[in-house]
C-alpha cells in the first residue's frame, strides 16, 4: 500500500468496533487506534461530548475503500510517518483471541439487534480473521449505551423533560436509516448483496422513517398541544415546497447532466465499434486490393463485395439482422467459411456445445473473425485451427495458427488490429482476450465471454 497522493478521512470498514470512526481517524492522523478510542472515552465524561462527536463523525464521514480487504495480506497502519503492521498498533489483540464462547454469542446477538445484517455480513467478510470484535466490541457497545444515557441525563438537566423522548425517537430513527445507507454501500463494495437481505433493508429503512415521523409529531404535540399540530404540519409542508422550488431546478439539471454524460459514453463506444468494423472489413479489403493491384478483375470483385457488405451493415433493416443464423455454432461456421473463401486458407473449426446468440457473443464472434483473418494472413499458410466451446455460461473461442508467431507488446501503437478489433472489443463487451505464443511455434488467441442473461 503506497502512500496516497493526499489522504482523506474515511471510516475503516475493517477492524471496526462500531462505525469504524476511531480506526479511520487513527489511520488518518497516524495515531495508534487505542489513543483515539481512549480520547473518545475521556471526552464522553465531558458531558457526553465524546458520544456526540463519534455520532457526528459516523454520520458525516464516508466509509473507506482504500484499505486492503482483510485476509488479502498484512494490514498496515500509518504511524509516525511510516507504515507498520496494524496488529502492532491495535491494542488488546490478546484479549480478543481468548474470548469466551458465551460472550461471543452475546456479542453476536447484540450485533444482530443493533447492527442488523452487518454483523452477519461482517462475519462473512472477516471470517479469516477472528480478531475483529469480540470482547472489545461488546465493551464499545456498552460504552455507547452508557454514553447515550449520560447525554440524556445532561439533556434532562438543561431542557424540559418531555422533549427527551421525541428527541430520542428521532435519533434512533435517523440512526437506523443512516446505518442502513452505510450497510448498503458497504455491501455493494464487497458484493454481499442478496435478495433476502433487501427486504430486511426496506423494513429497517421503513422503521427508521416511521420513528423519525413519530418523534417529530410527538415533539410537535408536546410543543403546542393537539390544536397546533395541523397548522405546524401545514407550515412544514409549505417550507418543504419552498425548498423544492429552490433546489428542484438544480437537481433536475444534475439529473440531465448525468443523462447527457451517459449518452456521450454510449456514443463513444458505438464509434469504437464502427471503427473496429471498418478496420475488419474495409481496411482488409484495401490491403487485398493493394496486393492484387495488377489484377483488375480481382480488384473489382473485392471492391464490389466490400461495398455490398458495408452497405448492408450500415443500412440494414432490423429484419435482416434477424434473418441471420441465431446460434453460436451457425454464426461461427459462416464466419469461418467466409474467411476461408476470402483468404484461401483452410480453417479447421471444432465447435463443442451451442447457445443462442446475444450481443456479447456477437462481439466475440467478430473478434474471433478478426483473429482468424490475422491467422490466415500471417499464419504461414498452414491451416488455422478454431475451437469454440460453450461451457455453462462461458463461451470460449481459441484461434491458433502455425506461423512465425509475434510478440503482442512489440506491435506499434498505430496498428489497431489486435489491440482494438480483438482485445478492445472483447473488453468493451465484458470479456477477455489473450494473445500468446503457442508451445511449438505459432500464435494462439483466446477469447472468453460470459453469456448475457436470458
Amino acid at each position: 500500500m503506497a502512500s496516497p497522493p493526499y489522504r482523506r478521512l474515511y471510516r475503516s470498514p475493517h477492524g471496526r468496533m462500531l462505525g469504524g470512526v476511531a480506526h479511520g481517524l487513527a489511520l488518518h492522523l497516524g495515531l495508534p487506534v487505542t489513543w483515539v478510542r481512549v480520547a473518545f472515552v475521556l471526552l464522553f465524561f465531558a458531558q457526553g461530548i465524546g458520544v456526540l462527536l463519534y455520532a457526528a463523525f459516523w454520520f458525516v464521514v464516508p466509509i473507506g475503500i482504500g484499505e486492503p480487504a482483510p485476509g488479502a495480506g498484512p494490514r498496515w497502519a500509518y504511524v509516525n510517518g511510516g507504515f507498520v503492521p496494524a496488529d502492532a498498533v491495535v491494542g488488546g489483540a490478546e484479549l480478543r483471541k481468548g474470548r469466551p464462547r458465551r460472550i461471543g454469542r452475546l456479542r453476536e446477538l447484540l450485533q444482530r439487534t443493533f447492527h442488523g445484517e452487518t454483523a452477519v455480513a461482517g462475519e462473512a467478510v472477516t471470517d479469516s480473521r477472528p480478531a475483529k470484535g469480540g470482547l472489545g466490541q461488546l465493551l464499545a457497545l456498552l460504552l455507547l449505551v452508557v454514553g447515550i444515557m449520560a447525554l440524556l441525563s445532561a439533556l434532562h438537566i438543561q431542557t424540559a423533560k418531555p422533549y427527551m423522548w421525541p428527541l430520542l425517537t428521532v435519533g434512533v430513527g435517523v440512526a437506523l436509516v443512516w446505518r442502513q445507507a452505510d450497510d448498503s454501500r458497504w455491501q455493494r463494495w464487497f458484493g454481499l448483496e442478496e435478495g433476502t437481505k433487501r427486504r430486511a433493508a426496506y423494513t429497517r429503512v421503513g422503521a427508521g422513517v416511521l420513528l423519525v415521523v413519530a418523534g417529530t409529531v410527538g415533539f410537535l404535540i408536546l410543543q403546542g398541544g393537539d390544536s397546533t399540530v395541523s397548522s405546524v404540519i401545514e407550515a412544514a409542508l409549505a417550507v418543504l415546497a419552498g425548498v423544492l422550488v429552490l433546489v428542484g431546478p438544480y437537481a433536475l439539471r444534475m439529473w440531465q447532466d448525468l443523462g447527457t454524460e451517459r449518452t456521450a459514453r454510449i456514443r463513444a463506444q458505438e464509434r469504437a465499434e464502427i471503427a473496429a468494423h471498418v478496420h475488419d472489413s474495409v481496411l482488409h479489403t484495401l490491403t487485398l486490393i493493394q496486393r492484387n493491384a495488377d489484377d483488375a478483375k480481382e480488384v473489382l470483385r473485392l471492391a464490389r463485395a466490400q461495398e455490398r457488405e458495408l452497405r448492408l451493415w450500415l443500412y440494414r433493416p432490423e429484419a435482416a439482422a434477424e434473418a441471420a443464423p441465431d446460434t453460436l455454432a451457425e454464426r461461427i461456421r459462416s464466419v469461418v467459411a467466409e474467411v476461408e473463401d476470402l483468404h484461401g486458407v483452410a480453417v479447421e473449426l471444432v465447435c463443442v456445445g451451442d447457445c443462442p446468440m446475444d450481443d456479447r457473443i456477437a462481439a466475440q464472434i467478430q473478434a474471433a473473425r478478426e483473429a482468424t483473418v490475422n491467422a490466415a494472413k500471417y499464419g504461414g499458410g498452414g491451416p488455422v485451427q478454431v475451437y469454440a466451446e460453450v461451457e455453462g455460461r462461458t463461451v470460449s473461442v481459441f484461434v491458433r495458427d502455425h506461423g512465425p508467431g509475434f510478440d503482442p507488446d512489440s506491435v506499434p501503437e498505430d496498428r489497431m488490429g489486435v489491440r482494438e478489433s480483438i482485445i478492445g472489443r472483447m473488453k468493451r463487451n465484458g470479456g477477455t482476450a489473450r494473445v500468446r505464443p503457442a508451445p511449438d511455434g505459432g500464435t494462439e488467441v483466446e477469447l472468453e465471454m460470459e453469456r448475457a442473461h436470458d
Partner: protein
Amino acid sequence: MTDAVSGAAGTGAGPERVARVVLVDDHRMFRTGVRAEIGRTELTGIDVVGEADDVESAVQVVAETRPDVVLLDVHLPGGGGVEVLRRSAPLMSDPNGVRFLALSVSDAAEDVIGVIRGGARGYVTKTITGTDLVNAIFRISDGDAVFSPRLAGFVLDAFAATDTPPVDEDLDRLTQREREVLRLIARGYAYKEIAKQLFISVKTVESHVSAVLRKLQLSNRHELTRWATARRLV
C-alpha cells in the same frame, strides 16, 4: 498441415522397427499416393503388405496378412469401414492383434463416432501429412490412440451433453485431466505440445487419450447412444 498427431512417437519411425500396414480404400489413386508417401520402408519403417478396395477383399486381406495397422477408409462399397471392423472383430481381441486407424475425407460426426464405436483406435482426416501419418501409424501399433481435433471435439460434445451422471457410471466419465487433454487436442495442439503445456510426459498424454478411447467404447450403452440418438445419427 498438422492434424495434431505429430508426436514423439515419430522417433520410433527408424528402419530398426517396421510396422506392417494394409491400405483399405476404394480409390486406387489415393492408395497409390499413400503408398508412395509412407511405403518407403527403409525411410519410414512402414511396410505396406496389402491393399483392398471393398469390404469383402479388406476382410480377406486383413485376415491373411495379419498386419499391425489397417488404414481404413470410412466409405467403402459393401457396407463401409464399420462393416470391416465388425467382421474383423475376432482379430482385434488379442493384445497384439490387428489395429485399425480410420483415414477418411469425411469428418462428419456419424462417421467418426461410428468407426470409433466399431473399435478403430484412431481417426485422422485425409488432409494429414505423410510424416504425421507415419507417426500416427506407429502410435496406433504401440497401442495408443490417435485423435484429430475434430474427433476430440465430438467426444467433448458427447460427454458434455450429459452433465449430471448417476454415481455408478463413474467409469464412463471423463476425468478433468482427460477433458483438458481433449480440449488441447481440439485446439490444434500436438501431443508434444500438450505435454509441455500440462507439464506431463508425452507418454502420460498418450495414456490419457487411450483412456478416453476406452471410455468411449465403454460408453456405447450410455452417453454416446443418447447423444447420437439426439442427433438422429443412429
